[in-house]
Each structure stands twice: as structure tokens, then as C-alpha cells.
């Protein structure tokens, strides 16, 4: 993402201001964060899954994932966009291994959307 540790562009370090993010770095940051949740078999993701319990209602999916990832507070517009995805996937059964396997990708996608938000990137 452009800031190599201990290797600033000059002896004065890194420039302040809006240079911390532009189209290129936003692209890199979002993709990096999204890719961390691409593999639902990782121990970290399984831990997230276990914390969601046996059932996640569609209405609760956004709020519970925001809590697990942060907690992160998001604006109304962001929440509405995330909720549209939650509505589309519906209630999720996580009570059995088979159900967890079937629905893990849907949870992962919600988290990928959350880490791509402006609020997460600026948090």
C-alpha cells in the first residue's frame, strides 16, 4: 500500500494530508482487506463464525458483523447498502457443520463488504 516500513520517500518522512489515500491506495486497501476474508477455512474466520451462534436473523446480520469486525459505526447510507445484502441472503442457519459450511461464504461476503466501507477504511 505504498508505505514501506522504515523507508519513507525523504528524510522528512511521509507527507500529511489527503495523500494517505487516493484511487490507487484505496483500491489496494480495499482489495487487501477483502482478500483476508476470501478463505472461510481459516481459523480466524471460523472463530468469527462461532461467535455468531446458531442462528442469525437477516435483520441482525449487519449489526452483529459490524460488532465483530470493530465495532464499527457506519452511516445510514452504508447501513442501508449492507442491509440490502442481508435482506438478499435472508436468515442464516449456523447450527450444524453442514449449515455453517453452506452459509459461511455469505457471512464472509458481508464482512468483505464491511471492510470495504469508507468507515472501516477511515477507522
Amino acid at each position: 500500500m505504498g508505505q514501506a516500513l522504515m523507508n519513507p520517500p525523504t528524510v522528512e518522512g511521509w507527507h500529511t494530508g489527503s495523500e494517505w489515500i487516493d484511487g490507487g491506495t484505496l483500491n489496494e486497501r480495499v482489495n487487501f482487506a477483502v482478500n483476508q476474508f476470501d478463505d472461510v477455512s481459516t481459523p480466524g474466520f471460523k472463530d468469527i463464525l462461532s461467535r455468531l451462534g446458531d442462528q442469525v436473523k437477516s435483520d441482525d446480520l449487519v449489526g452483529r458483523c459490524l460488532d465483530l469486525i470493530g465495532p464499527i459505526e457506519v452511516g445510514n447510507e452504508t447501513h442501508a447498502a449492507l442491509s440490502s445484502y442481508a435482506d438478499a441472503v435472508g436468515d442464516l442457519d449456523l447450527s450444524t457443520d453442514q449449515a455453517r459450511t453452506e452459509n459461511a461464504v455469505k457471512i464472509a461476503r458481508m464482512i468483505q463488504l464491511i471492510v470495504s466501507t469508507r468507515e472501516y477504511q477511515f477507522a
Partner: protein
Amino acid sequence: MATTTKKDPVFVVVQLSGGNDFMNTVIPYTNPLYYDNRTFLNIPEEDVLPLDSTLGWHPEMGPFKELYDRGMVAIVQGIGYPDSNRSHFRGMDIWHTCTPDEVSTVGWLGNTIEQLDPTGENPLTGINFGVGLPKAMTKAGVPVTSVSNLDNYGLMSGITAEDQKDEALQIFKNMYGQAVGTGPVMDYLSRTGNDVLTGADIIKVAPERYESTVEYADSPIGKSLRDVARVHSADLGTRIFYTQQGGYDTHANQLPTQPGLFKDLARAVNDFFADLEEHDADDNVIMLIFSEFGRRIADNGSGTDHGSGGGAFLVGKPVDGGLYCEYPSLERDRWAKGEDLEHTIDYRGIYGTVLEQWLGLEAAPIVQGTFEQINPFKTN
């Protein structure tokens, strides 16, 4: 009057970040004062690549010399501005905004892009390759695309299933598109996210269309200039390209570091123009290579410290190669600040030269005044 080309003129900027030592780039190798002041950090006369009887290139600038010998390089000697600020940040800001006396957030190329594309219709009118959008290209409301990796440019690239990626991108668009008015940071992020979405859609064709026999050297500046060539040859309407090569703040490491930087730069620029020539896409492209300041005249026993006047280069097929302006005097009574090369041409005059004679724009509103220009372009 603007130089005429059949295609829209294109301007490429290469920023040498850190303050390049011009005295060891274009070397006054027959001037005894050079060796008197560079007792440690001098290039021996026998190693210099002569360009005339008084000046010569650093030995690692061979591929650049080839371009010069072909008449494609205008050397702008003594570029700078009055009362140079030796800070990298402030110095670069001054170059980026054309406002030495006040702090501005509007870049001269941001203004230029706005003139070239007043409605902001094409987010690819101005593209930065590299990490960190330079202030030169910023202006509120002017879309600019910044690409750190052309082959991977586009959001959610890790989601392989196209329908799922499309769904995720639509939600991203909804999240970033409706938030204007929620504060300057969130507004800025929203605009940036939307510019990425729009730009990525258009720019993705560039790597697909590109084929070349030119093999660029494996260096960051080589990669960046290859990306410039790929997008330019895809004909996506880009008029301003920007990229940079870092590492010129060498201080005590100048002796081992500068040759490698020049080797990468010279090879990359040579490869770039060879690539454009292969694609018959070189007649409407010029390149400006600059650094925020030169180094001091005398070395400090192990390297050189921040200075004032330096040098810049205009490169390209339309350029009438040769030496422009006056090489700053090495006579002690003409040193700026008692230590530096005195500038002999204001950088805003070179910007004005490019704006008026190449891009066909009025320079004064962009460079904040009227400054002496040079005539570095071939006449048709």
C-alpha cells in the same frame, strides 16, 4: 502558439523525489571549480559521457544520452525559483501548486486537467501511476485516476465469480455514492471510490490491448513508464500522465545510490520512447523530468545537502533537443544562499512553455503569473 500534432498532445511528468544532484547529472567536467568543490563526490573526467566540450552526462545516463544524441532531449539548466525552500515537503508543494508564497491545495495539473476536460467527463484525462496522488494533480471536483498496479486495478478483484463480484461492486457503489455532504473526509473517500469504479471500467482494456517487443528493465520507474505506455497506446483519452522515481534524497549514500537511480531512470525513459515509437504513438508525447531542488555546490565530505537550483529535462520526438538556459555559475560570488546553485530559469516558465506551446492552454491563470518561457519544440 501551440505546436500542432495530428492527435491530442499528451504530457508525461516524471518526478525525481528527494532533490536530484544536477551537478552530477549534467556535469561541468572541464570546470576546475567543479572538482574544487566536489573533492569527494566528483565524477572523474574520463568517466563522464561528454555532450559537448564543457558538459557531460553521468556515466550511468548512457541510454538517456542516446535520446539526447537523437535530438530528443532539451536540457533545462538552472531551473528553480527565488529564495528556494530546502524542505522536501514545502519544496515539492511549491512545484506542485505554483504558489511559493502561500500554501495551496490546488495543483497546477489539477487546473490543467480541468481546462482539458471541463465537464470531468473522462476520469482518465489525468492518471497518476504509483502510490500517493501528487498534489500537482489535485483540485476539488476534478476526477483523477491513481493507479498503483495496472494489472490489478479494480475493486473486489479477489472475488472470482463474476456475478458475485458484480453484486459486491453494486453495493460498494451504493455505499460510496450516496454519502456526499457527510463531511470532508467521507466526501473525499466517496469521490475517490467512485473515481476508482469509473476509471477501472475504462482502463481495464489497456493491458488487454497492449503488445510490445520492448522489454523494460525490472525497476519501479520502468514498470510505471510501461504502464504509461500501455494506457497511452490504448488511446483512452489520457492527456496527463504522472509518475515518480523516489530515492534522490541520498545524502551520505549518494556515491553508491545515485548511479543505480540513473541507471534505472535512463533505461526506463529510453525503453518508454522505444515502446511509443514501436506503437507509432510518439509524435504527440512529451515528458518533463524534474526534481524539487538541486543539491549544494560543495559536497559535505560524504554526500550533498539540500540546495536550490537544479535541472530538468523535456524529452520526446517533438522536442528540439539541446541545451536551454544558462548553467548556474560555480563562481562563489554567484552562489545562492552562499552555498547553492542559483536558478537561471523559473520552473513556472517551463510549466508555461508546456501549457501554451504544447497543450495550447493559457498559462498565466495556472502558473499564477507570467514567466520567461523557452522554445523547446520543433516547428512544423
